[in-house]
């Protein structure tokens, strides 16, 4: 039986580790390669690097980060942020990323998902969705709306419909990131995660709001997620990765316990 995965998300800006609260107020908190290595040795199952660099000139910095990480981490890892073309995706793959995450550009041009799937395989294409809770409307019947550009631009698209469309277009996994929960450490958006997981047959990664191992437990059981993304709770040293995994194990979640 597959283990539930604990994935750490490292937001990288200009080659440095950053963390946002509700998508704003980012600050630098260290070296992403060092952190990645520390988590890898402490039993992390997978890593996600999110390039939040604003300028496109800084792309090559990210490729260097990816290369260095790939030399030291022998676990799967994915990279996202600003991927607009198959070329962006294959550059990152050649630098050593296992999977690539598409987000805003795929919302604006959904064919990007199928193009990337054809070029690097569905299993390596992760569709990352940023979702905000809104009132239920005709356009957004679930009350969960897709937003892009780091949470700044609401799209009037229903998150559940987009998840399904992403799967149909060839995404191999979904990251469901709740903007309302992001950085709050108050727990994942369980209902949203579960609704998505029940609609698709590809793995769902819950994101946004992790503060305690109990939050991961809830989203991996009640929320039906296959994996849980963590950030602040380990970046600031409140928990170690192995503590999180040991707690999950003790709570009866099947996680990888030998590394």
């Amino acid at each position: 039986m597959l283990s539930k995965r604990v994935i750490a998300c490292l937001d990288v800006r200009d080659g440095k580790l950053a963390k946002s609260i509700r998508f704003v107020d980012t600050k630098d908190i260290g070296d992403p390669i060092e952190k990645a290595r520390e988590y890898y040795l402490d039993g992390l199952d997978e890593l996600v690097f999110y390039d939040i660099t604003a300028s496109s000139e800084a792309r090559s910095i990210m490729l260097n980060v990816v290369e260095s990480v790939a030399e030291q981490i022998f676990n799967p890892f994915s990279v996202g942020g600003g991927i607009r073309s198959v070329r962006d995706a294959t550059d990152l793959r050649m630098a050593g990323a296992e999977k690539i995450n598409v987000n805003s550009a795929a919302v604006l041009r959904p064919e990007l998902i199928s193009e990337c799937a054809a070029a690097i395989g569905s299993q390596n294409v992760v569709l990352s969705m940023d979702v905000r809770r809104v009132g239920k409307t005709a356009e957004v019947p679930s009350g969960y709306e897709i937003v892009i550009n780091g949470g700044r631009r609401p799209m009037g698209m229903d998150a559940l419909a987009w998840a399904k469309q992403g799967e149909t277009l060839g995404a191999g996994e979904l990251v469901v990131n709740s903007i309302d929960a992001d950085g709050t450490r108050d727990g994942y958006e369980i209902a949203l995660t579960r609704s998505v997981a029940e609609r698709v047959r590809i793995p769902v990664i819950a994101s946004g709001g992790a503060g305690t191992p109990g939050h991961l437990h809830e989203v991996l059981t009640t929320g039906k997620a296959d994996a849980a993304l963590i950030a602040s709770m380990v970046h600031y040293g409140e928990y170690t990765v192995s503590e999180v995994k040991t707690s999950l194990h003790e709570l009866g979640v099947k996680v990888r316990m030998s590394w």
Partner: protein
Amino acid sequence: MAVIVDYDAGNLRSVQRACTEVGLAATISDDPKAIRHADRIIFPGVGAAGSAMQSIRKSGVDVALEHAFRSGVPILGICLGLQISLEFSEENDQTTLGFLPGKVCRFQLSNRDLKIPHMGWNEIEVQRWHPLLEGINDGDEFYFVHSFFPEPENPTTIFASAQHEREFCCAAGLDNFFGTQFHPEKSGRVGLGLLDRFRNWDGRIAE
């Protein structure tokens, strides 16, 4: 020198980096001559059985691999590399290399909560002693990404299994060929351990 067999222009640098980490010098090549002269071979895999076999045949890599197999050169197949070493794959209904008697089947799952591809960390159960699986303990997990699984004909060629609704073979071998359905290069310490043992393997299974 070890050779990592390239075909279909796949991204094989993760395999190469993991080899470097365990001290195994390996070049990536699609040249049949280099494969013939290699003293050990890693045969990874990307893409689908159909297109993989097409490019392998076109480049002559199939003949070089066959030669290496018959000559006793240690070969490690990874994922699709293992799959196309069997005789037939249900993926594209493709006749494959056939070093190892048996075929490759698609997962048919009845449990809706289980997914295809089988992707992520799963524990393996060693079925039979093999020098490359030495030191792997029950509960050790490896990283998998696949929708098809090998089904070797002869049970004595099955060395480890895993569970995804049903039990399936995840490591198989015959003589100097050994293949894993999981990715040792992505499986942390336990995966590097397997590559390290491959570095020193003489191609024999005898205990």
